[in-house]
């Protein structure tokens, strides 16, 4: 199908070809949208594109992109994971308490604790979804309250504040390497690994297959249960990792931390063109979606809107992106059908 398209294009005018490529690549249209949005912002405040501010925005979206990537894999397999905030809270609280109780434990071990907790909680989700055959939305709706409740049980209702944690732990996200903060490096590593995983490994491609058409995937030998289980382990692991980072970055661990963060993660995926029916989407899109949200939040004060407008503007942007994605998708499907009929 793709080859025939490529062959036919040279006869068309250049501009039309460019438009076509842009419509074909979700990421390209997102970049253009981002650029259009930046014009009035930069016109009003040129410092917006200063290195300092870019650095701030990237720091702000690091945790969001890690979490959004986790959510991406679940949505890709035609599921949804609502436990984002709860796993972040539990792993963040555990990290903070470990640091408070044993200040000598190195940061790496704290991060590993967060990752381990996330993997365990994600495994439970995966078990219930893949082997208990409970729909993902119900499973994670249930475990979301359970994990949040466990956070309260763990902390006994108290919280960990900045002066109860060591400066090495709180300071580590701001430690720089090659002029870039550790937090951003963490996000970059996660992005690179998951990009490679989703594009070039067999399990990664199997997630696309299951999300696109589970029955067909099963017939070509994809283990559906294992894939669905794996997806939740990946998302849980990333959420757990994000939890440890969250506590270190915001220098506090409270029981209500990251409440409703799942909506941000899903919004980044929607903006990045991830299809809710499963099987379509890519890591670069998701990262761009997170970047889009980050720029939006940072830009509000520049255009004299109070932060109280954040939710409203975000909702409208997500809705707009959703409508554009759907219309473009439907047009593409129609065109494909017409082509098939013509032959």
């Amino acid at each position, binding site marked *: 199908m793709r080859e025939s398209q490529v062959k036919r294009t040279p006869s068309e005018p250049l501009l039309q070809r460019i438009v076509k490529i842009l419509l074909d690549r979700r990421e390209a249209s997102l970049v253009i949208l981002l650029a259009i949005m930046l014009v009035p912002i930069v016109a009003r405040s040129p410092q917006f594109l200063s290195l300092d501010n870019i650095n701030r925005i990237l720091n702000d979206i690091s945790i969001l992109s890690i979490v959004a990537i986790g959510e991406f894999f679940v949505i890709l397999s035609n599921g*949804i994971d*609502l436990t984002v905030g709860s796993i972040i809270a539990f792993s963040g609280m555990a990290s903070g308490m470990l640091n408070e109780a044993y200040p000598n434990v190195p940061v790496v071990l704290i991060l590993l604790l967060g990752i381990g907790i996330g993997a365990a909680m994600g495994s439970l989700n995966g078990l219930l979804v893949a082997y208990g055959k409970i729909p993902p939305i119900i499973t994670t709706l*249930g475990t979301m309250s359970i994990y949040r*409740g466990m956070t309260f049980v763990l902390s006994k209702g108290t919280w960990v504040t900045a002066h109860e944690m060591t400066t090495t732990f709180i300071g580590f996200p701001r430690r720089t390497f090659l002029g870039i903060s550790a937090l951003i490096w963490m996000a970059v590593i996660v992005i690179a690994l998951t990009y490679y995983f989703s594009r070039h490994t067999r399990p990664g491609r199997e997630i696309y297959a299951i999300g696109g058409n589970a029955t067909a995937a099963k017939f070509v030998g994809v283990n559906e249960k294992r894939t669905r289980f794996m997806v939740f382990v990946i998302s849980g692991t990333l959420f757990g990792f994000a939890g440890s980072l969250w506590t270190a970055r915001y220098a506090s661990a409270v029981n209500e931390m990251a409440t409703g963060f799942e909506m941000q993660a899903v919004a980044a995926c*929607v903006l990045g063109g991830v299809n809710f029916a499963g099987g379509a989407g890519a890591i670069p899109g998701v990262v761009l979606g997170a970047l889009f949200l980050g720029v939006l939040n940072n830009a509000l004060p520049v255009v004299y809107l109070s932060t*109280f407008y954040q*939710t409203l503007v975000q909702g*409208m942007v997500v809705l707009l992106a*959703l409508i554009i994605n759907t219309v473009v998708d439907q047009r593409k499907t129609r065109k494909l059908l017409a082509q098939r009929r013509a032959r």
Partner: protein
Amino acid sequence: MAEQRDLVAKTRLIEERGWRHSLTELLTKWEVLLGIIFVLMVVFFSNLSPYFLDYFNLMNATFQFSEKAIMALPMIYIIMCGDIDISIASIIALSAYAIGTASAAGVGTVGLFAIGLAVGTAAGLINGLLITGFNMPAIAVTLATQSIYRGIAQAALEERAMTSYPKGFGFFGQDFIGQTVIPFELVLYLVLAIVMGFILHKSAYGRRLYAIGSAPEAARFSGIKVKQVRIINYTLMGLFSGLAGILLTSRILSARSNIATSWDLEVITLVVLGGVSINGGKGTMYGVVIASFLVGYLKFGMGLLKLSGTIMTIVIGTLLIIAVLLPRLLDTYKNNRKLRRQQAEAALQATKA
């Protein structure tokens, strides 16, 4: 052939152990199980706390869950069709904001009531039109409108709370029927539950809901206007959320932008716990009503025992998972037994022949 064998096995089964079979059938019905759990819970709490089985307390406790139970009614319709709506808590915030603003401008009680309903209905209608008009996934659309509806209230109210209301407005959410201790909210809920239950189980519209939920394509080909039904569902959901907004504002006489946060998930929990399949096409009104009272009184009872809200969220989350897991396990168990019986039957016939 297979059907015949199935029939043989079934009659055999009923002949052999008729009463035991029908008993297991009855016990594996979700509504019956819920009822049993409810009774067990009442026995449990009344043994542990002398204040549980107090008529006044039991009535008073319904204030805490009537609004959510009311919202669960149209949510049944939505989930029955395989849809979902996670914007309902934000619709409450929006209607509460509208009521508060109108009240500050001097609108009377009746006017406030109308405004609350109108705002909710409009928000629900917008959801329905967006979802069916562009053919977009319900969860993604209502995720976006969730932010938009609450965002409007947030942008307008910021940190403020609207707290001035006309004198009679407190009636809806605070008062009792006549001289009794029966809350108005509870009576309203029961009346609405009967009406919505009647529509679900006894009307053509209700049958259409089941049809759409079990096979949307087949429903469309058999002449059901699927889009129209879904739009009506979302509009109803908006109307009821507006009503819940009125009741809640009237009860606490204050409107903030963070009002009713996360109620959408609690309402969905009630519906699923009540036995409505999240994939659509299965469920009853009785189940959801029992589930609403079960969760409501569970919270009340645990509060009496001075258990923290934390334990409650864990218990309710676990209950939700068990509610979905248990029928599936029972189904597998039943199927396995049936299979073994059929195999035995086949072997028997083979030896005879």
